[in-house]
């Protein structure tokens, strides 16, 4: 078990969806402002700003790289470093690990981590094409019509083959996430969803139907990481980073040799060992989704289903409101919306929100320990982070 070195002390977020009148810059500024105020800090207490890579606009991303947020938020001549961290959808976990390392090594005191993007406002075909180049090889895969929905479909096909998971069980993941999203004013989709509706929607890439697939959204979220010893002096609700584990399994999905498992078993074993907290003590699973198969693979790898098959566990309602293992209580990318890299940031921020006791009508009662997971590109890597209210 490792010494706890870092904690989240503040969070901010703007609603996800289509907001053509709200620029990425505006969304980033508001999310950062809210995180700084939530922590009770001043902008001049932030010494490192860590913006995530944005995909929809190169111009905006260049602004992020070149310290625009430091200028917009009153950090000039106080911030020491502005540095982009980017590993696609895995950035929630990897950025938290980088921030943890900076504060643990004495290189930073308060790190402001922020994501903003506007992929939801892209024309539909531009969105499809953008995500047909993220982890999809231009030379080896794009010529065959590969795309992100096909990535989810190939993994679903392999996972269903190995585990006998059904289409209804995939749909049950979408329904569980939607039930949480109904309680989340920041979610893009809040109307009730049924398994029948998912299975009646148009087939996109077998076995995935339209409502098995995420929808691109605009959004922004931010959080602040401080040294563990400083955290209780900053806020009354610090969330401690207890342990992280990860494994890179591929770049292109065609090179993964265990697509039904990825690297989650190894990542979870590392995170549980470092944190001293095992699956039996996890009360909330904030799991990166994007397609329903990934939460199932992740639940299996993290051993969170009490020996049951993940598909049966979710279909029995165990991950929905009132279930024994609340999962991705913001609604995930399938219901809060896929804000590009930020879909994972929103899942992580919801984990902090829950552990801070700030989740309102969807607050999980008596919560102490949670786990957050993420993966980037075509699920190139498997990240697991154990978070706790306890030091």
């Amino acid at each position: 078990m490792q010494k706890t070195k870092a904690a989240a002390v503040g969070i901010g977020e703007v609603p996800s969806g289509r907001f053509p009148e709200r620029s990425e810059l505006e969304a980033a500024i508001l999310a950062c402002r809210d995180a700084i105020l939530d922590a009770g800090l001043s902008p001049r207490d932030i010494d490192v700003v860590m913006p995530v890579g944005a995909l929809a606009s190169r111009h905006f991303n260049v602004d992020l790289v070149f310290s625009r947020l430091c200028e917009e938020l009153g950090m000039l001549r106080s911030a020491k470093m502005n540095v982009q961290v980017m590993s696609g959808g895995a950035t929630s976990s990897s950025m938290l690990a980088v921030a943890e390392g900076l504060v643990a090594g004495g290189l930073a005191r308060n790190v402001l981590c922020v994501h903003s993007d506007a992929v939801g406002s892209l024309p539909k075909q531009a969105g499809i094409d953008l995500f047909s180049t993220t982890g999809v090889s231009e030379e080896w895969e794009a010529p065959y019509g590969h795309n992100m929905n096909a990535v989810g479909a190939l993994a679903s096909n392999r996972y269903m083959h190995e585990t006998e998971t059904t289409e209804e069980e995939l749909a049950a993941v979408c329904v569980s996430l939607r039930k949480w999203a109904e309680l989340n004013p920041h979610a893009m989709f809040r109307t009730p969803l049924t398994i029948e509706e998912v299975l009646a929607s148009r087939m996109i890439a077998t076995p995935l139907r339209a409502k098995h697939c995420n929808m691109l959204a605009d959004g922004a979220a931010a959080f602040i990481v401080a040294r563990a010893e400083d955290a209780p002096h900053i806020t009354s609700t610090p969330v401690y980073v207890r342990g992280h584990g990860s494994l890179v399994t591929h770049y292109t999905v065609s090179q993964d040799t265990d697509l039904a498992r990825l690297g989650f078993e190894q990542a979870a074993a590392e995170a549980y060992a470092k944190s001293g907290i095992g699956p039996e003590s996890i009360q909330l699973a904030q799991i990166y989704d994007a397609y329903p198969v990934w939460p199932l693979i992740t639940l299996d790898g993290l051993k969170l289903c009490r020996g049951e098959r993940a598909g049966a566990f979710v279909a029995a309602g165990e991950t929905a409101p009132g279930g024994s293992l609340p999962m991705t209580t913001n609604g995930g990318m399938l219901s809060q919306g896929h804000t590009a890299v930020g879909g994972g940031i929103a899942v992580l921020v919801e984990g902090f929100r829950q552990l801070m006791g700030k989740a309102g009508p969807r607050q999980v009662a008596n919560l102490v320990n949670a786990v957050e997971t993420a993966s980037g590109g075509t699920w190139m890597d498997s990240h697991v982070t154990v978070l706790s209210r306890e030091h």
Partner: protein
Amino acid sequence: MTATARPLPVPSAWSAGYWQAAAERRFVVQECKSCDKAIMYPKRVCPHCLGENLGWRVSAGRGEIYAVTAQLAGPPTGFADHLPYVIAVIRLDEGVQLMSNIVGDGALGARIGDRVVVDFEEVEGTVLPVFRLDAGAETRDA
């Protein structure tokens, strides 16, 4: 290339041999002459020993489907006229994997474990290795 054109491979210095072979309707797999390992996709250095003594191994282009999907809607630019089409991850008998399309008889019903064999499809002057269900293998299995 127009905005609606299907994307085609742009070979690198170290992958040109693969595409040249395909243009001649031969299927090859890169090999490391130092450690004798098969390599897919072609690499600049061997990912096993980091050596540079790389060449090409003629392959029968046979293997089995590891994962498969039929794309029915929402394709990337350049593929709207090709729907439905089948994308598969194929595990070659050489032990390496690649992505391709399954074409020909029964392609839409292709399943994990089905034996496949390479074929070639010309797209706007570029020859792409694609795969067909290997009817001979099915007969042998039965």
